[in-house]
């Protein structure tokens, strides 16, 4: 008995042993199946899980003026992030709503809603806040509130050339203007970081890492000159304030090469905070009317009819205006009966009848040839985000009456840019240049990597024609009293109906004034257009004073030598006024036919130009006075403030308000400056500030 149960047990032990060994061998096979047979596949899947492929964004290039002054720049800025789960745990949603709504100027209820929305893992509360705001928030040390590194586009001059520079999305994608047109160039190429990470995304010990360096965007150097632009903008703003038009457009162009030195659209908006919520307002504000909006040019177009007539040899000696003229059954009316006039006077009188006669006389083919030659009906080719071709009736559909109407600047739509470049071609002697906004591209060190040469598109009129036309324009400038001391000028102007939704706006017109100087060797052309300005007696010359003001600024800034023929005019010798009392000195200068400017009171200690120099009559002698007017006077000394830690916009404002010229190097937060804080410098000196990107604080 005993033996039998031991026998059974031994047998069954053997069975157990065999079963266990077989099972374990099967499991070994199973491991082999996964590690060898399926191994490569599983490993690939596992690796794709371990490896995180992240984009490393490239730094967006800056936009600069022709002297490499920064107009747009990217810098680090924090984005406030809420973590609702943590907030729920800490039960501080109310505190967060109170504090953050105050610091960020947001609606408390909105902040509270977001803070208590536990369905979301993280919520971006506000992007790209200022450094002060992030410091304030950081100091509160709120649970569930954190920051993400972000990059903000800064426009140190705020609304300066807003429609030209353009704005970007919060993510830095160019939306309008140069920001849009050169988006790819500015953006650069994003890099990649491929790294092994743990499940939560953090790095792992001995993890493999591969980095493809991002390629930073290039800087776009504009043809815009910051100083000329300021002249133009302040003139346009004055006009906008004084004459209450709906908008003002202004342009300064170098007629010798087509470069746009300044381009303004008033009203402007602060590029740092475009009204993103209101798409309609934003698109209206950000439109560059000069390049984007076609309009009927009106009687200023007479200059082109006259140009075509002269150049084609179809001009008549006399144009008789009785107030209206019928071409092919359609009547062209004039503002008045101008009577008998020569070609020049048809232009000066803005005579529609004269212009219609000139267009009619040369015929459709010839007129269209000149229109095309001036660039009407086709894009100007400007390197800008918007460039309208305007609206020109196709030649084969144009009847004789249409041609006559077009001569008067109606039944044709052009852009102000087309107008300016066509006018420029007459002024420079007949060469039509492609208008240019961009001088070239530069790298991070400021070296030009690419320069765009001026591009001559063709000859609009002959040199001879141009000379004849310029004589008319000089006449115009004289009539309107548009003159800059020391320079000869020329001008052309006109007014046109303002259209809105296809109908003419009553009592409002579009008035344009173009002037250039020096007349004998033209360089700068200024064009200012008041759109929707109330119609008055002086409607054609309403912009003239502002054009003159801008032209004067541009000439001085451009170091243009006064005209030859002006030099032949009266010259005087500067008297020695040093040592005289102020009033005495001013009288002495006035007697000599000179203007004077001074910076204080008491005795004169110095003068520029010096005594015995020969200068033009009416030029200005600057007197240096014994007692300076104020410590903030022209040559006053000021103390350099400490810029450390400021962001670019703040630093710029601080520099400007203390009378320093702001020069930025780099990007981000001010980390160094020259001269150092506390140094005494002459007002108007340069302050060079080094900016460096914020180093994300390790939390």
């Amino acid at each position, binding site marked *: *008995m*005993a033996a039998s*149960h*031991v026998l*059974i*047990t*031994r047998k*069954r*032990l*053997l069975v*157990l*042993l065999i079963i*266990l*060994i077989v*099972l*374990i*061998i*099967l*499991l*070994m096979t*199973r*491991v*082999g199946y*996964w*590690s*060898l047979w*399926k*191994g*490569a*596949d*599983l*490993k690939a*899947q*596992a*690796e794709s*899980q*371990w490896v995180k492929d992240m984009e490393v964004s490239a730094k967006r290039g800056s936009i600069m003026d022709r002297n490499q002054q920064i107009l747009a720049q990217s810098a680090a800025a924090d984005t406030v992030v809420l973590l609702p789960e943590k907030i729920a745990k800490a039960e501080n949603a109310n505190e967060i709503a109170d504090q953050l709504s105050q610091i960020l100027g947001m609606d408390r209820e909105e902040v509270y809603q977001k803070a208590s929305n536990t369905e979301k893992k993280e919520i971006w509360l506000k992007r790209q806040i200022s450094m002060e705001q992030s410091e304030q928030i950081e100091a509160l040390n709120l649970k569930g509130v954190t920051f993400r590194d972000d990059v903000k586009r800064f426009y140190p001059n705020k609304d300066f050339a807003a429609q030209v520079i353009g704005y970007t999305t919060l993510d830095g994608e160019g939306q309008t203007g140069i920001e849009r047109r050169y988006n790819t160039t500015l953006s650069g190429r994003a890099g990649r970081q491929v790294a*092994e990470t*743990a*499940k*939560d995304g953090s790095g*792992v*010990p*001995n993890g493999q890492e591969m980095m493809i360096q991002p390629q930073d965007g290039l800087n776009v150097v504009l043809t815009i000159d910051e100083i000329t632009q300021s002249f133009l903008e302040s003139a346009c703003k004055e006009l906008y304030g004084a004459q209450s038009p709906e908008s003002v457009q202004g342009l300064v162009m170098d007629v010798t090469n087509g470069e746009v030195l300044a381009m303004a659209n008033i009203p402007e908006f602060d590029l740092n905070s475009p009204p993103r919520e209101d798409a309609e307002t934003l698109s209206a504000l950000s439109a560059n009317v000069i390049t984007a909006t076609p309009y009927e040019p009106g009687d200023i177009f007479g200059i082109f009819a006259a140009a075509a007539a002269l150049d084609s040899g179809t001009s008549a000696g006399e144009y008789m205006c009785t107030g209206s003229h019928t071409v092919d059954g359609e009547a062209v009316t004039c503002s008045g009966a101008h009577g008998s006039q020569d070609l020049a006077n048809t232009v000066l009188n803005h005579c529609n009848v004269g212009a219609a006669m000139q267009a009619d006389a040369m015929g459709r083919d010839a007129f269209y040839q000149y229109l095309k030659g001036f660039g009407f009906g086709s894009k100007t080719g400007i390197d800008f985000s918007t460039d309208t071709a305007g609206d020109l009736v196709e030649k084969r559909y144009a009847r004789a009456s249409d041609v006559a109407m077009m001569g008067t600047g109606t039944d044709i739509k052009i852009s102000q840019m087309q107008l300016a470049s066509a006018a420029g071609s007459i002024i420079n002697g007949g060469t039509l240049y492609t208008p240019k906004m961009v001088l070239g591209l530069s790298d991070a060190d400021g070296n030009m990597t690419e320069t765009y040469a001026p591009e001559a598109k063709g000859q609009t009129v002959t040199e001879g024609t141009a000379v004849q036309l310029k004589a008319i324009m000089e006449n115009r400038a004289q009539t309107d009293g548009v003159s800059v001391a020391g320079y000869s000028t020329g001008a052309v102007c006109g007014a046109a109906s303002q259209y809105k939704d296809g109908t003419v706006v009553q009592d409002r017109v579009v008035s344009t004034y173009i002037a250039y100087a020096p007349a004998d060797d033209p360089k700068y052309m200024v064009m200012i257009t008041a759109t929707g300005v109330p119609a008055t007696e002086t409607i054609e010359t309403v912009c003239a004073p502002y054009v003159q003001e801008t032209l004067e600024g541009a000439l001085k800034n451009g170091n243009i030598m006064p005209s030859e023929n002006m030099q032949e005019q009266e010259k005087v010798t500067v008297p020695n006024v040093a040592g005289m009392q102020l009033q005495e000195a001013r009288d002495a200068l006035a007697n000599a036919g000179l203007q004077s400017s001074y910076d204080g009171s008491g005795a004169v200690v110095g003068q520029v130009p010096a005594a015995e120099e020969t200068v033009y009559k009416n030029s200005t002698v600057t007197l240096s006075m014994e007692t300076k007017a104020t410590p903030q006077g022209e040559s006053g000394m000021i103390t350099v403030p400490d810029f450390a830690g400021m962001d670019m916009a703040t630093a710029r404002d601080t520099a400007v308000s203390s009378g320093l010229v702001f020069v930025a190097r780099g990007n981000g937060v001010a980390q160094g400056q020259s001269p150092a804080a506390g140094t005494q410098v002459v007002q108007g000196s340069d302050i060079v500030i080094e900016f460096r990107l914020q180093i994300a604080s390790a939390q």
Partner: protein
Amino acid sequence: MQKKSILQKGSIDYSILIVTLILIAYGVIMVFSASYYMAQASKDYNYDGLYLFKKQLFGAAIGLAAMIFFTFFDYKKLFKLRYIILAIAGVFLLAVLVPGVGVTLNGSSRWIRVLGISIQPAEIAKIALIIFIASSIYINRNRMSTFRYGMLPPLLVLLPICVLLYLQPNYSAIIVLAALTFIMIFVGGVKGWHLAALGGIGVIGGIVLMVQEPYRVARLASFMDPWQNPTGDGYQVIQSLYGIGSGGLFGQGIGNGTQKLSWLPYGESDFIFSIIAEELGLIGAVLLLALFVFLIYRGIKVAATAPDIFGTMLATGIVTLIGLQVVVNVGVVTASLPPTGVSLPFISYGSSSLVIFMSMIGILLNISKQGRRIMMASTARQRT
């Protein structure tokens, strides 16, 4: 002469001792490798990367003491202690259900804290059950074929233990103990058809339990195709397979695994086999299983040569428990069985389990010593 005297004294099976020590060392090293990253990143372990390693070392030291103790402790005395041990196991199993005493983790209360040490009562229940069933078979060795004496006593003890485990709940322990009981009474000599009936009831009971809670069905489904739900039920199994798959033949090298870096949950305990396969490759994994095969083989040999049926059954129970846990654990890790939390003996992190298994090895060694003495004696008798 000298050799003979050693044999007469009876020596333990040194190969079992050596294999056990190798396994412990293997386990402690792998626990270190698998747990370091997780522990240094976890607030629960005070960001101390060595926390689990130190605890496991401590467990191994206690286990070594227990193993030495049981090597010299006459296993026959366990027969007399069977009710006391069973009672202790019962008390612990009840205590774990008392709120405040039991530690609840992931929805089940499996640990109790005594004197600052966490103990898993289920581990104590395992050895208590082995001792009790071995005793029962020893008592009823000549009437094992009867239902009343052969089958009833083990089942009557198993049932309340299972109920208590069910309340934790700890289904994997129930499955292991049920299978253990089944195999022990099979080896003990119960009738074939009794076993078949019992097996049938077990399978039906299992299905009922399965359908009761939907998550168990989901677990079963995830075992069949873990990729069906890669972020939910299938996640752990997929991560485990990623580990095995990326190990290949030779592995990434010890310490170089990636899956333990937050990807594979419980990489230091239930899923340590996957980490081993990743770091030491198929070779390391097969070597580990071979060590277990050897241990089982020697253990069965000890069972077969035990001086009495109590020793045989005790050894059988111990070997079966080790074998079962290895098969179930590796089965789960290799997606061959539905996911269930069974630790890998000697290897997985967990002091309770380590101490209990090492105590069992101590008992096994004691049986081997006594069996050899008898064997030597009978051989000596035959020669003379």
